[in-house]
């Protein structure tokens, strides 16, 4: 059962981001939390991993979509208001 449903049609000819395996996400979580010093009780682990799986699935959809180099990030900074 997915934590959240994310689906879209694949784009022909564009590189496909591999779906991270559970152990890869677990390793990412462990390393990131060690870096930040964030405490994660063992009892929370399954929930955190489930959420990360949903986030990774969402990110894959976005990463798999080709974008021209000229497309900038949406928020545009102004040096002065």
């Amino acid at each position, binding site marked *: *059962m*997915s*934590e*959240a*449903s*994310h*689906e*879209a049609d694949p784009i022909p000819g564009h590189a496909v981001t591999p779906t991270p395996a559970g152990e890869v996400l677990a390793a*990412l*979580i462990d390393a*990131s*939390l060690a870096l*930040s*010093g*964030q*405490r*994660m009780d063992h009892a*929370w682990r399954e*929930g*955190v*991993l*489930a*959420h*990360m799986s*949903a*986030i990774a*699935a*969402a*990110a894959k*959809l*976005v*990463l798999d*979509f080709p*974008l021209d180099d000229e*497309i*900038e*990030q*949406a*928020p545009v900074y102004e040096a002065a*208001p």
Partner: protein
Amino acid sequence: MIPAATTSPGAATDLATAHAGEVAEAVRTRRVPALAVTEACLVRIARHDGAINAFTDITAERARARAAALDAAIARGEDPGPLAGVPFAVKNLFDIAGLPTRAGSKINRERAPALRDGALVRRLEAAGAVLVGGLNMGEYAYDFTGENVHDGPCRNPRAPDHMSGGSSSGSGAAIAAGFVPLALGSDTNGSIRVPSALCGTFGLKPTFGRLSRAGSFPFVTSLDHLGPFARSVRDLALAYDVMQGGDADDPACTQRPAEPTLATLEEGIDGLRIAVAGGHFRRGGEAEVFAAVDQVARALGASDIVDVPEAARARAAAYVITAAEGAALHRERLLTRPQDFDPAVRDRLIAGSTIPAGWVIRAQRFRSWFRERMRALFTEVDVLLAPATPCRAPLIGQQTFTLDGVTLPVRPNIGVFTQPLSFIGLPIVAVPVFPDDGLPLGVQVIAPPWREDLALRVARRLERLGVASAPVAAL
């Protein structure tokens, strides 16, 4: 219709459940004192909110003082404003002077009391409205259900064992229950539209940047919107118009001049190209939610279905941005006291804190792409229609639902139809539809950026036709 003030219980109920426009007219013309309206609302709240749990703070003394001051001003011949005497309440992420801004959390209760009201609270009060309290919400707005482990669940006034929806749970419930005629909420991925739909109220999520966010506790600054709830479209327009205008205290607030909507509200829909959003917005929900959209479309004479390009990807991108920015905002609190969060929120935030930067940057770039595609779509269409939620209000505590044969967790998936659209800040009115004697459904009336007037005109048309309505719930 508000009668002259009397001491009969029926009259008190009329005062409490009247529309904002009716209250303002009655108070301005001195047919009813503002204080009487305020007292009627406070009585109704005291009598019924125990079963609904819409309010977390009731600012009764302040409200009475404010109403009395209004009545005195009116007696002196002063103009009390277009919302004269209208009681309102705000989601408790809005600053209320003298109260810590709790934002649905336990942790924020320890904050110093706000020194002044949030910008929109001040603007409504400057127009004569009377703040009566702060409203329940999902912790830190990271919620679609209306459940809150610290303050208790907000219950759906239409069926109290069902969710109110969130995260502006108290806002939707307070309006549906007839506690106040106006409420304010916030919407990052659906948090005005979902409780509007599930509780059966009108709700407006304006264009991103239209209304000042100054004096409110944030969630995802890339996506946060603030907006009103009401039981009539006219009341939405009235409140929205009063709240518009730039704000030096909010760098994200537009400097566009205010664009009032009330004057054009009755212009109807002639000449408007209205279509139903297809693709993503026609699957992954109960059949009745699409039937509600179709009913609305038929009433408007709309028959075209227009595919919204890459809507599922838009939702995914909003999901990633939300997870990353929400986690970043709460970093210090997560490091020092993770045990004081709602566990459901905590685990999402911890996961969000590990997201690679490249994912978020990509999502923000995709946002530019999607914005341009929707700009092109809106050269062909003036208004789009879509469901607000994939189902009617689930039961409180329900963990999963089955949509299109797939069993999914409720919490992150209620926003499947709202999230792609707030992602690019489109103005949307959620209109309530009652297909039968059961719980309501909501339909999103979606307009191009800065065209709240079109969404409100369409919503008003639906209200006049009797297709959309927001009756006070029987409590």
